[in-house]
């Protein structure tokens, strides 16, 4: 099915993201899920830095940046102001990277969810602090080489496992929680629309391959997004009121070996069979857990 799609007025070209950036590609898909009645609070990170080189802005929507850690609190404030004005139409959205979400912003996110605020939180998961030079975050997966978890003779890269942020969202009882990847633009757009249709807090986490962070070629962000799903490492998931919707897993996992995903990424190139087996087990566990 084809439909004429217009050049995105909500997120204009002329931004300074790396050529082929998976985060900006995913952000275009997010923008297609919005209408003009939104206000976006953006945390510090690549999405914010690359789209707002002073005095320019790529945004065609009300958009505010304050700090790295407080985007959720800024959104809470916007929501309170809208309520004061009697505005129930305007949707409030947060955009942040994984560092801003999994680590430094977590306390304020927890408060926002605790209060049950009707805000859509979108996390672009580049699996590291991309904008400051690829330091490891709570979202960095096992085995990834980053500038703070470099690989070497005595190091396999990160030895920590990726924090399960989706489970943390679900533990707060958010009404909608979903996961997607830059490999599936239509899935991202559909999930944004579904999240906005829900009354109450919603969380959408998108795997966003980062060119220098993952050490991939400029044209590989979408491919990596697809492989992350196909291997079972990052399945497309959707929870409504805590229940996994059957429709969420529309892309049947083909059970591609994780080595297919790892081998084209410089951040994993040092891994030996022993570590690859550990990562394969993570994917297999996902396949079982979500019955893919």
């Amino acid at each position, binding site marked *: 099915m*084809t*439909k*004429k*799609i*217009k*050049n*995105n*007025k909500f*997120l*204009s*070209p*002329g*931004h*300074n*993201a790396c*050529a*082929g*950036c*998976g*985060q*900006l*590609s995913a952000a*275009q*898909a997010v923008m*297609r899920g919005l209408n003009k009645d939104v206000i976006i609070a953006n945390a510090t990170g690549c999405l914010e830095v690359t*789209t*707002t*080189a*002073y*005095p*320019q*802005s*790529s*945004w*065609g*929507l009300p958009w505010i940046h304050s700090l790295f850690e407080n985007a959720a609190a800024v959104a809470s404030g916007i929501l309170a102001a809208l309520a004061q004005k009697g505005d129930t139409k305007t949707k409030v959205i947060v955009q942040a990277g994984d560092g801003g979400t999994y680590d430094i912003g977590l306390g304020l996110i927890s408060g926002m969810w605790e209060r049950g605020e009707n805000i859509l939180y979108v996390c672009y998961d580049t699996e590291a602090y991309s904008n400051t030079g690829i330091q490891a975050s709570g979202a960095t997966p096992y085995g990834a080489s980053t500038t703070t978890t470099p690989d070497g003779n005595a190091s396999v890269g990160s030895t920590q496992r990726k924090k399960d942020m989706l489970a943390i969202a679900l533990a707060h009882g958010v009404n909608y929680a979903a996961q997607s990847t*830059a490999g599936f*633009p*239509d899935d991202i757009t559909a999930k944004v629309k579904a999240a906005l249709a829900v009354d109450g807090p919603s969380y959408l986490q998108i795997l966003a391959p980062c060119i220098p962070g993952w050490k991939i*070629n*400029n*044209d*590989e*962000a*979408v*491919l990596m997004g697809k492989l992350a799903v196909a291997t079972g490492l990052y399945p497309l998931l959707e929870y409504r009121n805590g229940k996994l919707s059957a429709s969420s897993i529309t892309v049947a996992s083909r059970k591609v070996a994780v080595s297919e995903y790892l081998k084209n990424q410089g951040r994993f190139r040092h891994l030996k069979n022993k570590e690859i087996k550990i990562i394969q087990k993570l994917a297999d566990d996902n396949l079982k857990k979500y019955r893919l």
Partner: protein
Amino acid sequence: MKKTNIKNSPIKTPAKKLAVVTAPNTSLKNKTGSWRTHRPVFDHSLCIGCSLCSKICPEGCIVMAKQKKYGQKIKPVVDYDYCKGCGLCAKECPVKAIKMEKDYE
């Protein structure tokens, strides 16, 4: 390049006090096409009009537009002012209707 000063600046709030950008879409002034070493070239006769390239382009600089030559079917048109030549569109096109060609002397 024209220098931004207080008069032609997009800043509408009191600039001396607050560094706030209030004019939307002003990054359009930043022609990122100069980054490019390769350019995507589209073969409209092969294109099936699926819009995938237009959806995944991180720049959002591919527009699907009706083409008279192809019975008003939609085909991708690139704004080379902004295309950084990443090659994502060419890599992902399901019918290989996009080729990356050298864009320098």
